[in-house]
């Protein structure tokens, strides 16, 4: 059964159809890369998967034990406020939001999970640091920790390496690759073809014609391999 399945999905703003009759399905442990030019509908797709936008036609479905609110989401970091007063720990902790349910406060278990996640991503020394003073790479790690607390099944990343220097970007890709090897399903928007061709199992290309293929078929068709 697929973890994420889009069927005949269309999304439109007013009369402007951004996504037209898109269908694809990925299984647990897949690594899907969404590529295409700016404005081609990548972020719109992401927002529809997240439930922030409603499809005008068709459906998006989750399966294999994943609930719609159990998605880890790493937004484009530039969309967040630069001067927000928050510590690293506070931001990471907010990843436990979907575990609160009817509770008001994070319990011991959630705080422990948060601590372990910070340790895993090397953030413990920064726990009390202000989010505003972090470097781009550190910020992305903080947001990744938050996303991973929200879900252990599927991770959505919207251009996770924007604004990072090549070395940090490559570290980020390796980190995501490791998560994928541990069984995490990845859906990522990215422009870095080198990493995409290396790591992704599937490619969804919002080109002139929208295609969804396994990476090796995609490369064959494009004559890259």
């Amino acid at each position: 059964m697929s973890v994420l399945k889009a069927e005949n999905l269309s999304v439109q703003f007013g009369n402007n159809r951004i996504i037209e009759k898109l269908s694809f399905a990925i299984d647990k442990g897949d690594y899907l890369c969404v590529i295409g030019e700016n404005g081609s509908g990548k972020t719109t797709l992401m927002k529809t998967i997240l439930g922030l936008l409603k499809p005008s036609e068709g459906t998006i479905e989750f399966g294999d034990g994943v609930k719609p609110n159990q998605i880890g989401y790493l937004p484009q970091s530039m969309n967040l406020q630069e001067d927000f007063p928050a510590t690293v720990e506070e931001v990471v902790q907010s990843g436990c939001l979907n575990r609160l349910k009817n509770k008001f406060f994070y319990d011991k278990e959630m705080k422990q999970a948060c601590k372990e996640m910070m340790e895993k991503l090397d953030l413990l020394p920064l726990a009390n640091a202000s989010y505003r003073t972090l470097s781009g790479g550190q910020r992305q790690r903080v947001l990744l920790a938050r996303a991973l607390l929200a879900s252990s099944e599927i991770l959505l990343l919207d251009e996770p390496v924007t604004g990072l220097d090549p070395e940090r970007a490559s570290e980020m890709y390796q980190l995501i690759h490791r998560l994928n090897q541990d069984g995490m399903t990845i859906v990522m928007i990215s422009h870095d073809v080198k990493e995409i061709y290396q790591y992704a199992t599937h490619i969804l290309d919002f080109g002139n014609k929208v295609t969804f293929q396994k990476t090796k078929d995609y490369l064959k068709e494009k004559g890259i391999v």
Partner: protein
Amino acid sequence: MSILDTLSMYFQYPFIRYAFIVGILISLCSSLLGVVLVLKRFSYIGDGLSHVAFGAMAIAAVLHLTSGRLLLVLPITVIAAILLLRKGRNSKVSGDAKIAMISVSSLAFGYLLMNVFGTSSNTSADVCSTLFGATSILTLTSSEVWICVILSTLGILLYILYYNRIFALTFDEDFAKATGENTERYDLIVAIVIAVIIVLAMNLVGSLLISALVIFPAITSMQLFKSFKQVSIASALFAIATATIGMLIALVQGTPVGSTIVVMDVVVFVLMYCLSFVLRIHV
């Protein structure tokens, strides 16, 4: 007679005690709300709404509603708050213009109403006290005091109970929404709380000065502190301090309560702003 003697004499009057209780609670409430509004870039909504409340107050005055005026003013302001928050979201520019339009037209409408239909012999004094608070904090009836105490306690309680959700939603609304938080409900609650606080705060500082109570404590604490928790707590403390000192000065010196509190807010902000520079140099 020393200042302390004067004060202890004043505090024997129940209406002075009422004024302090209500003043501190309202300031505290507005400052917590201010943290959210400032961070969500909604600072001006408070200002716009206070003018709507002025217009509603004018209608209440013309209809000769005295004790029941909250029943009229509160719903009007709540509705305006819901409309402003909803529209302000989709398109930033037109949202801005909308707030300005609603705010000036309510002011004009309110003043016109009071002038044309007003029965009081001194319209400009009425208008002045609605705009700047004047002495209305000292003339609260005990039922008004109770309403203030209950509503502001409720506001503070809501902030504490929903603290973690408020943080997540303020920091990154998309993320919160994606993890299943009902952000529309949250917006609605915020709108209602803003409206309630603004109507309550009209008694204290009048409708022109309310924004100061909302914005200053939050901005002041953001100069000094880096975590959301510290900023929330510091805002509350700054609000209590400025309200208390402002009201004491007003009492002793006979200055208008509202503007004295706001001036204290400004003074404390300037001090903390300078302090933040000193700290930055030494760290």
